[in-house]
């Protein structure tokens, strides 16, 4: 099995049967245990200067996202400007990690972000369902990269994964990674549709074996988005993957993370699961839109000493 996976890592084709054997050979997830562990880590109290540092780190990890049918160039420009200076009243506030938009909006965002160090991510591959022919997905990806995106958020074919066609999912990821060229590849597992923690663990390993730079929980378009236990399973997967193959993979929970309190729970979980190697925007991201304003409000509370209100921050 190790041989299988290693050869996969080096890009050599193997039979889907080997992949299946490997993924089903992964130890099962203890559902009760993982939920209890995630809940226990969520009770830590982070205060004063530690909280200030956690908030700044969380801001630097935000992938500021807008993925609506109603997105206009004006809205994307405004969001990109906010990404560069989240709090116009406070120049010490760090910029976010990246802006995440649909491929059609990539050139608009690229014009604002060029040369700033803030990355530009684009969802591609028939986001959010992933139910399109491979050729369409690859064209989607190439367009986004050509427009200036340096990170691609792809969705896996949940239909194929759930049907047990791991080989197809694997080949798609490999193909999209090739199409993405120099851009970093984040693979969205859409854990809300995978059903079980076992499937989350298998999908995580599948994506990493196929070459993902990041594994991401959700599209934000289904009922169940990122949760602490699911992210914990994925953090364990990236930790074990690095231990086994020496390559570090990032994690991005997305959808449903709205408050500073939630964000800090994730930071605690990273530290306790993977250690501080992952406590960096290169290795952990929050896919979020409303989270940023809450982080800014908490930051303002700490710097001014009184409670902040949403009237003083932009509507996104």
């Amino acid at each position, binding site marked *: 099995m190790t041989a299988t996976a290693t050869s996969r890592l080096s890009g050599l084709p193997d039979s889907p049967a080997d992949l299946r054997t490997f993924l089903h050979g992964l130890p099962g997830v203890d559902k009760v245990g993982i939920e209890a562990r995630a809940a226990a880590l969520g009770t830590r109290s982070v205060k004063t200067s530690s909280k200030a540092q956690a908030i700044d780190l969380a801001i630097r990890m935000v992938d500021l996202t807008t993925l609506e049918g109603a997105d206009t160039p004006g809205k994307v420009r405004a969001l990109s400007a906010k990404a560069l200076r989240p709090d116009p009243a406070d120049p010490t506030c760090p910029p976010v990690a990246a802006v995440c938009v649909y491929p059609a909006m990539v050139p608009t965002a690229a014009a604002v972000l060029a040369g700033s160090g803030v990355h530009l991510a684009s969802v591609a591959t028939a986001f959010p369902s992933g139910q399109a022919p491979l050729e369409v997905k690859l064209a989607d990806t190439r367009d986004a990269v050509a427009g200036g995106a340096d990170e691609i958020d792809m969705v896996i074919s949940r239909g194929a994964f759930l049907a047990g066609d791991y080989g197809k999912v694997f080949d798609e990821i490999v193909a999209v990674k090739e199409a993405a060229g120099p851009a970093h590849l984040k693979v969205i597992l859409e854990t809300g549709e995978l059903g079980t923690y076992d499937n989350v663990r298998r999908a995580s390993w599948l994506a990493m074996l196929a070459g993902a730079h990041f594994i991401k929980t959700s599209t934000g378009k289904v009922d169940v988005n990122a949760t602490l236990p699911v992210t914990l399973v994925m953090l364990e997967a990236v930790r074990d993957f690095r231990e086994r193959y020496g390559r570090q993979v990032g994690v991005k929970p997305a959808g449903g993370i709205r408050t500073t309190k939630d964000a800090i729970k994730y930071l605690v979980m990273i530290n306790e699961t993977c250690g501080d190697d992952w406590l960096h925007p290169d290795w952990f991201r929050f896919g979020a839109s409303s989270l940023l304003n809450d982080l800014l409000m908490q930051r303002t509370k700490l710097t001014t000493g*009184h*409670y902040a*209100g949403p009237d003083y921050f932009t509507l996104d």
Partner: protein
Amino acid sequence: MPESSTSARLAVRKTYKLYVGGKFPRSESGRTYLVDGDNVALASRKDARDAVLAARAAQPKWAGATAYNRGQVLYRIAEMVEARRAEFASLGVPAAEVDAAIDRWVWYAGWSDKIAQVAGNANPVAGPFFNISAPEPTGVVGVIAPSSLLGLVSVIAPAVVTGNTVVVVASNPQAAITLAEVLATSDVPGGVVNILTGKAAEIAPWLASHDDVNALDLSGVDDPELATELERAAAGTLKRVLRPTSGVDYTDDPGTAAMTALLEIKTVWHPKGF
């Protein structure tokens, strides 16, 4: 046998908890204090923060309800206080004051669909415009309430009847929380009235400096130094501050001042005649 089981019954004592977002939580700090032998939750700054969140969340829908509907809800409160006379009496509130408090609710209920006609206007202007001034609620109001039941009703009712939502710091906890139990059973949407019990000197500064509180009513602040400090903190966000200059007699006719103090006038210029 029946006698022994009767004498063995333990009394169920009531803990007076906070009233936030339509629920009765304990203080997040876990603190309580004793008032006349009763356990009362001692609110912290974080309870104030949670109460402001609840008030803000409830405000647009409450302001968007028809004036007629808000009046009906206030009238319903009067009905429910009526049913709890015995409970207020057992807390030492004189019957005449309960009467006055009930009448106060009814009086303000009647104002709900009339205040716009009194405080608003169709203005004559030199130009082809309809020019209309319409009163709108200020938003979330922090209230430091006076200790009497009538005083409490006299500061809550004028704020909420026009569509504001309130965070009240009450100094007579048992009567205030009994009133909260009335509100909770009177079709008042959760979050419209939030009542915190505890020390005004501890909680009020956080409400005064809070960016998401739009007005501050200092009716219940007796200490002039604290009142000045609160006014100063409120100035940081240009809050509307109500500070009665001298002792108010709540049995007097309240007039419309308490309502209009928490209204903002919106003036609309509407072109006509083209």
